[in-house]
């Protein structure tokens, strides 16, 4: 973010070191430029994989397949000798590198699409299969004949070079720069591509898109209900992650001058994954560190140590040492290193450390911890949004005879519920009555088996959760579902996701409109956090907040989506009566100041009876009562099923 502004000297020193390194290396005769250049290619690959695994949290075990696609796109289009009629003459390296990136991105989407509904173990297994398929396909497409009857439209076509691969591959042409056996020009070419990629990734991470990836990684359902479309977000992660491997594969093919299917086997995928995990998934610095460590360990340290061990073996006359080859032990050392890092620093060498927040200071008055919301704290922009609403129907939410069955259990049975504009409606009932299922149906997480749901005059059934958020319904969850490993500010910013517009080019190039939008979004998020009482905690990780603050943050995140209807699922659970009072004031304030409609599931009767205009009672999925709080409290069925007789004396204290 602003690291470069604070540490210009450090950056200047780093750039200078990178620029003079190959010449120093040559002067001293180290001959490490080749290894370092290859290392940078692997770092670029690992950075691409980091988008998929580190940011979006999608475990990809077959990433080397994209590396292969990139390398073969370059090899096939740029090779001067390959006997294919498709690729009669070599294309320019500078054109091919972009084609390779696009082809890889398209394949990223193609493999991403069928895996959208699976996560975790299943996704990993599918990518594993994909990683196996690509090298096999490349091996077998070296001699293609298609025979339809006696007609042979394609005969003995050498599409990929088969087991022998593509050799030679054309080199980049640049006036005055010899891309030959001297590694120095290659070093600088890779350095430039790597630096540009890093610059783009860094900007993507700090954009609306980067936050969406991380939100999906943290909690896909919560992200969906906060307005992030999980389908397009995941596909974008696959596509962008793959496109960087297209660049890396291109340069790899051109630098090596030859490619064979063997270079893209399963071990490569695993090595790339090791780089990401070792350095710290999600951290650009960490992945660079992990990538360089592993490549240089393999290419420099192990070979040099082997020489030393052999020399030692010869000197002291131990034949076993004199013929030792430590490079054969590389997987042993990788495995050992990974185990040690996971034990000692599970977040990776440069990962974000997860520290708990300090507890309230000793001197702090306990009563100040529970701050009452203030009318003048209501963000002005939310007020403006509130006035822009178009009233398309008298009721903001109109639910008619909604039914939902899970197997044999009828979770909701012909339930009707109306939320008038600007009203607070309570939804109560025994545990397991179907209240949360009702929320899930309204927010699109669960599709009803029957009935109609109309919001602002428009039908909602069949819409995705994120589309429903965009229309103006936000929710909180019974068991808090924040994006745990993102900061408080980032959580609120994800809430604004569906109101922001930056796309990939916008996020990378940052034209003035995108900068203005992002600045405004951050200012709004801060205002909102101050309003709910989280001012000063913007940069803490959500997981480190105390329970009450987590509840408040969830409400702030919901408000950031600019809702017209807010669904709160047991917002005061786990709060003491005093905190519950503050929450009640907050909900009342939102209705008064923002004309927000609220549907509230709540078991604290002081809260629900105090602020609801009307209350609906569910029992075994059926509406058993509907009316004003006073009427509900006298209803004998409600007392029998839900309130019990003890509660009145409890209210009386």
């Amino acid at each position: 973010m602003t690291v470069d502004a604070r540490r210009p000297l450090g950056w200047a020193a780093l750039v200078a070191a990178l620029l003079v390194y190959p010449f120093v290396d040559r002067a001293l005769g180290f001959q490490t430029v080749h290894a370092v250049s290859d290392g940078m290619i692997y770092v670029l690959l690992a950075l691409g994989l980091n988008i998929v695994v580190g940011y979006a949290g999608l475990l990809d075990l077959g990433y080397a397949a994209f590396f292969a696609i990139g390398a073969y796109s370059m090899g096939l289009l740029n090779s001067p000798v390959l006997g294919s009629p498709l690729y009669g003459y070599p294309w320019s390296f500078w054109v091919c590198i972009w084609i390779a990136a696009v082809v890889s991105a398209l394949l990223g989407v193609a493999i991403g699409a069928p895996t959208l509904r699976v996560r975790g173990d299943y996704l990993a297994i599918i990518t594993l299969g994909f990683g196996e398929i690509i090298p096999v396909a490349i091996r077998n497409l070296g001699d293609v004949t298609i025979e339809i009857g006696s007609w042979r439209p394609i005969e003995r076509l050498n599409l990929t070079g088969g087991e022998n691969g593509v050799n030679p591959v054309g080199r980049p042409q640049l006036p005055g720069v010899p891309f030959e056996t001297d590694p120095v020009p290659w070093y600088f070419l890779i350095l430039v591509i790597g630096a540009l990629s890093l610059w783009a990734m860094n900007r993507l991470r700090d954009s609306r898109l980067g936050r969406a990836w991380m939100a999906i990684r943290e909690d896909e359902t919560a992200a969906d209900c906060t307005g992030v479309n999980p389908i397009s977000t995941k596909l974008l992660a696959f596509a962008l992650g793959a496109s960087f491997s297209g660049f890396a594969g291109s340069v790899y093919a051109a630098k090596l001058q030859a490619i064979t299917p063997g270079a893209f086997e399963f071990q490569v995928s695993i090595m790339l994954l090791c780089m990401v995990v070792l350095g710290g998934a999600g951290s650009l610095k960490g992945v660079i560190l992990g990538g360089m460590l592993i490549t240089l360990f393999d290419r420099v340290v192990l070979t040099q140590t082997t020489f030393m061990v052999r020399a030692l073996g010869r000197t002291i006359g131990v034949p076993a040492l004199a013929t030792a080859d430590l490079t054969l032990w590389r997987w042993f050392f990788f495995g050992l290193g990974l185990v040690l890092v996971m034990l000692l620093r599970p977040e990776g060498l440069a990962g974000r450390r997860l520290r708990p927040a300090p507890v309230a200071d000793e001197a702090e008055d306990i009563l100040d911890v529970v701050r009452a919301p203030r009318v003048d704290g209501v963000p002005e922009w939310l007020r403006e949004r509130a006035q822009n609403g178009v009233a398309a129907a008298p009721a903001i939410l109109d639910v008619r005879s909604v039914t939902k069955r899970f197997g044999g259990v009828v979770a909701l049975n012909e339930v009707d519920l109306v939320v008038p504009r600007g009203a607070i409606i309570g939804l109560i009932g025994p545990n397991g009555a179907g209240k949360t299922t009702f929320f899930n149906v309204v927010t699109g997480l669960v599709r009803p088996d029957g009935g109609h749901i109309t919001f602002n005059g428009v039908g909602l059934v069949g819409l995705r959760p994120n589309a429903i958020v965009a229309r103006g319904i936000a929710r909180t969850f019974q068991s808090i579902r924040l994006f745990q490993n993102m900061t408080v500010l980032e959580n609120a910013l994800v809430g604004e996701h569906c109101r922001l517009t930056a796309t990939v080019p916008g996020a990378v190039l940052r034209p003035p409109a995108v900068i203005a939008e992002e600045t405004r979004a951050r200012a709004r998020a801060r205002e909102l956090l101050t309003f709910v009482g989280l001012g000063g905690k913007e940069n803490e990780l959500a997981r480190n907040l105390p329970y009450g603050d987590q509840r408040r943050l969830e409400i702030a995140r919901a408000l950031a989506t600019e809702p017209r209807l807010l669904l709160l699922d047991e917002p005061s659970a786990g709060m003491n009566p005093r905190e519950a009072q503050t929450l009640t004031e907050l909900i009342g304030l939102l209705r008064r100041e923002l004309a927000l409609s609220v549907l509230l599931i709540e078991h604290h009767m002081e809260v629900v009876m105090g602020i609801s205009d009307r209350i609906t009672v569910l029992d075994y999925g059926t509406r058993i009562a509907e009316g004003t709080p006073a009427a509900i409290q006298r209803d004998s069925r409600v007392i029998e099923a839900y309130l019990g007789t003890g509660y009145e004396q409890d209210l009386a204290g």
Partner: protein
Amino acid sequence: MLDLADVSTYYGNIRALRGISLTVAPGEIVTLIGTNGAGKTTTLRTILGTVRPHRGTVSFNGHRLDTLTTNRIVRLGIAQSPEGRRIFPRMTVLENLELGAFVRPDREAIAPDLERVFTLFPRLRERSAQKGGTLSGGEQQMLAIGRALMARPALLLLDEPSMGLSPILVDTIFRIVEDINRQGTTILLVEQNARMALRVAHRGYVIQTGRIVLHDAAAALLRSDLVRKTYLGEK
């Protein structure tokens, strides 16, 4: 029976407990009340050994707990519920309850206890063949409490048992707390519903930012100004 002496617990370099001393005598219900983040759950974790105290001692019937692993502590006769509702989502309700009795040597007494749990929570009987993860939040809460009861501990640690339960069940829960206490189980109760907790408890401790600021008979705490203003929400 349970004795915490000058216990300090840290998370990293942050001191969550600042020298807590409390005792629970056999047969008592003792309640620990305080706001969110005051250190109530940390106290329970320290007793169960899921976090280690940096200073001070925790002892139970003469055993030092602060050097034992959690499963050893549980075998000494301490059980906790609901531990943030950590039920086993892919096992049935019945299997969850049976696992609660995992450490018990008296196999023949398990069936009557299962019956007792089902009587307390008829909803669990209705759903006994369902997977734990398909239960609603409140039902999972019942299951977590039922599972702790199945361990038939000498000391039961209850962490906000009334959270997320309907008013009628809140009444039930506190009646159950009194019942199992009469049957011989000692209870340490952490609750946000301070009024109900202080009604069933014999004694109470008030914890603020990691320190015990007040302890007294429960009835006396109900009358104290600090408790009424801070925890009961009275003006």
